[in-house]
């Protein structure tokens, strides 16, 4: 058992080594780079399975399984910074999920990126991203987590901007990096504040860790401004980081633009792993967020904020997704919405509910993205759904996998994992003591999710193929859409299997996943189903309604030409234009924050150029003047006065030295004259 924790750190290091080596490889060594990356991920997956198996036998009944390994990283003066990694159900689950999904996506991108010239560089970045994500997952110290968090941000920047020659990609990469940085600032402040308060950044450290009871009790007691408990304040700051990374409401703008990157990137980063990092962070520091002053039974303010933001993001993103025409943007907004659900799940239901939805979502969202990728690949880089249609017969395997993913996402009852995880959230939201708001928003979100997924299915797979129209207008002859090769479709099928199978792990009847997380043993009781029945029936009803509406608008009268107005647009032109414009959040930001930033930049430029620059020029001028004065003084005062005086003195000295020229007769004559003078003075001196 001990040896497992010892070798857990190898999982993130393997992809890092792969990334390092492939970075040094010349551009044409494509196969080695790919082999290295996939091999590292495969090995990582095996090790993760071993670790997962280890976590199945809990050491002590009732207590969650946890193995900790800390080491001294930095020593400065008396203080020292310690890092470490931990193996507990939460990290083990994430390890398995990330390595599995990563491996499948690596295999898939073999085909997708086959004829891309920068193939090796792509795999190097992918491996680098995987190692950062795995590092983040197993981190036992908030500092190590933060380091990996930044590396993940860097990897996302590199991968989004992979085709940097496309200006939009470069802009999207920069936007993603900056927005996440804003969130990371909150994370950094929270981390520093936590370090100052608890004195240690290690989560679990034999009782000294910041998430353990001793530190939490200290944090809960003291309050900061406005009576907010210290733990909640730090929790909120950490949540800012999570919001940035997971694209919650105020900071979600970068996620849809991140679709500029290649589709496997979108799949891996913007569906499964990186965006999940925010949720994982909240799950990891859940005890801190959850802590409330002893005695008071109500939910801590931090969790309330998380819940409400999650709910709002869910409904907001779902609304926008309805009016999108780009296949990847629809999925991007659906991801934002689902992340909102996860945050709400964490807020209302606790770690198990949130994490279960995260796991299921990772698989079927990756499936959907890879499916979209295969569609785009098939339609020769065509991303606009208005130019697609009728691909059901042309790409049957992709259609089948995509349909499974769509139904999982929509939450079709009983068979698909999406239904169980979303239902659990709704159930928890329903039980939430504070208010019914989140439950209502969640339900509406679920309805909209079903609606826009059916819209997408109808427009992409059903109805006539609208690609020909585009070619006539666009002027380039496009070949008939063709099915993707096996190397792309096999991962789709594997993901489809998981998208279906995973749901049964966490159903109310047999809540194995929740029990595994808390470390309690679970066994099959159909009875639990009965108490969760009402929410299950409600959600089934919602899904049905959403699909019916979708089919009614888009399935019944399939769209004939790309330029044809959208069905919803015909119904509600005003609402449709707002939704299509993404509630104009970007424009709002551009109008306010960006303008403000530009203004600030201008101001600082002005300050720098005129004020400081002015000061510098002023001092330069003053120094010039002083030196001028000094020169003048030197010129006239010293040279004129002093030197002149010295010169005169020297000349006088030379004159008197003439007297001492060694001619004693001169001396004698002087004596003679003196004698004469003396006599004169003596004799006539008195009379004068």
């Amino acid at each position, binding site marked *: 058992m001990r040896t497992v924790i010892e070798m857990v750190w190898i999982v993130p290091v393997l992809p890092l080594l792969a990334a390092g080596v492939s970075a040094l490889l010349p551009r044409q060594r494509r196969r080695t780079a790919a082999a290295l990356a996939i091999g590292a991920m495969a090995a990582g997956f095996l090790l993760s399975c071993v670790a997962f198996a280890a976590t199945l036998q809990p050491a002590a009944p009732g207590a969650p399984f946890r193995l900790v390994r800390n080491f001294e990283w930095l020593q400065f003066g008396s203080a020292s910074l310690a890092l470490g990694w931990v193996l507990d159900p939460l990290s083990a689950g994430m390890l398995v999920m990330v390595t599995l999904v990563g491996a499948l996506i690596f295999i898939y991108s073999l085909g997708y990126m086959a004829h891309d010239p920068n193939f090796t560089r792509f795999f190097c970045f992918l491996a680098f991203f995987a190692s950062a994500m795995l590092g983040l997952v197993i981190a036992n110290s908030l500092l190590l987590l933060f380091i990996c968090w930044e590396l993940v941000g860097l990897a996302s920047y590199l991968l989004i901007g992979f085709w940097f020659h496309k200006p939009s990609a470069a802009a999207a990469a920069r936007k993603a990096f900056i927005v996440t940085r804003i969130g990371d600032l909150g994370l950094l402040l929270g981390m520093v504040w936590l370090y100052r308060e608890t004195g240690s950044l290690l989560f679990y450290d034999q009782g000294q860790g910041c998430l353990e009871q001793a530190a939490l009790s200290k944090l809960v007691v003291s309050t900061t401004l406005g009576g907010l408990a210290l733990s909640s304040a730090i929790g909120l700051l950490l949540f800012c980081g999570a919001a940035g990374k997971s694209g919650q409401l105020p900071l979600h703008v970068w996620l849809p633009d991140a679709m500029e990157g290649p589709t496997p990137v979108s799949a891996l980063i913007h569906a499964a792993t990186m965006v999940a990092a925010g949720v994982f962070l909240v799950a990891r520091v859940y005890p801190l967020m959850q802590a409330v002053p002893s005695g008071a039974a109500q939910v801590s303010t931090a969790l309330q904020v998380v819940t409400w933001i999650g709910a709002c993001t869910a409904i907001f993103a779902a609304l926008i997704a309805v009016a999108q025409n780009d296949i990847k943007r629809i999925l991007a907004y659906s991801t934002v919405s689902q992340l909102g659900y996860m945050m709400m799940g964490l807020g209302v239901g606790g770690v198990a509910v949130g994490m279960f939805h995260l796991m299921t979502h990772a698989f079927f969202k990756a499936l959907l993205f890879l499916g979209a990728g295969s569609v785009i690949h098939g339609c020769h880089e065509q991303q606009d759904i208005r130019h697609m249609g009728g691909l059901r017969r042309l790409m049957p395997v992709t259609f089948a996998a995509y349909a499974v993913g769509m139904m999982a996402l929509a939450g079709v009852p009983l068979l698909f994992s999406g239904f169980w995880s979303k239902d659990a959230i709704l159930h928890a939201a329903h039980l939430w003591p504070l208010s019914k708001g989140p439950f209502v928003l969640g339900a509406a979100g679920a309805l909209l999710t079903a609606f826009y997924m059916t819209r997408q299915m109808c427009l992409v797979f059903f109805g006539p193929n609208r690609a020909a129209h585009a070619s006539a207008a666009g002027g380039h002859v496009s070949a008939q859409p063709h099915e993707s090769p096996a190397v792309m479709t096999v991962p789709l099928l594997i993901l489809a299997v998981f998208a279906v199978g995973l749901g049964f792990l966490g159903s109310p009847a047999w809540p194995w996943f929740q029990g595994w997380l808390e470390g309690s043993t679970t066994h099959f009781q159909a009875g639990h189903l009965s108490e969760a029945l009402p929410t299950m029936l409600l959600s089934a009803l919602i899904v049905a309604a959403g699909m019916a509406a979708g089919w009614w608008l888009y399935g019944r009268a399939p769209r004939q030409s790309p330029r044809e107005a959208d069905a919803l647009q015909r119904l509600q032109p005003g609402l449709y234009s707002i939704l299509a414009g993404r509630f104009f959040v970007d424009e709002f930001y551009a109008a306010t924050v960006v303008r403000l930033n530009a203004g600030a930049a201008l101001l600082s430029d002005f300050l720098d150029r005129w004020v400081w620059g002015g000061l510098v020029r002023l001092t330069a001028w003053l120094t010039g003047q002083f030196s001028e004065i000094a020169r003048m003084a030197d010129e006239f005062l010293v040279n004129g006065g002093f030197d002149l005086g010295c010169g005169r003195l020297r000349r006088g000295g030379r004159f008197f030295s003439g007297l001492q*020229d*060694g*001619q*004693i*007769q001169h001396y*004698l*004559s002087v004596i*003679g004259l003196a004698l004469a003078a003396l006599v004169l003075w003596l004799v006539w001196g008195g009379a004068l």
Partner: protein
Amino acid sequence: MTPLPYWLILSSILFAIGLAGCLVRRNAIMVLIGIELMLNAANLNFIAFWRYGSGAEAAHGIMFVLFAIAIAAAETAVGLALVIALYRLRRTVQVDEADALKADDKPR
């Protein structure tokens, strides 16, 4: 007896001649001769004042002259010794040529 001023004028003339000798001639020995003349002029004055002064018995004047003569002789002896040493060192006794105190051995 000739009045006192005559004696004094005579000694002044003698003194002036001695001084002229010192200043005019280039030879060191001539300077010494000039000095001797001046000293003798002074002695002449002493005797003159002794003779015409009051209290001739006290012989102060004569005493002065005696001591002056002795010391002048000593001074001449040393002066000439110096001149001879200078000559051996510099091969010249011209006063205006021996104008440097620097003790370089080579006779110039």
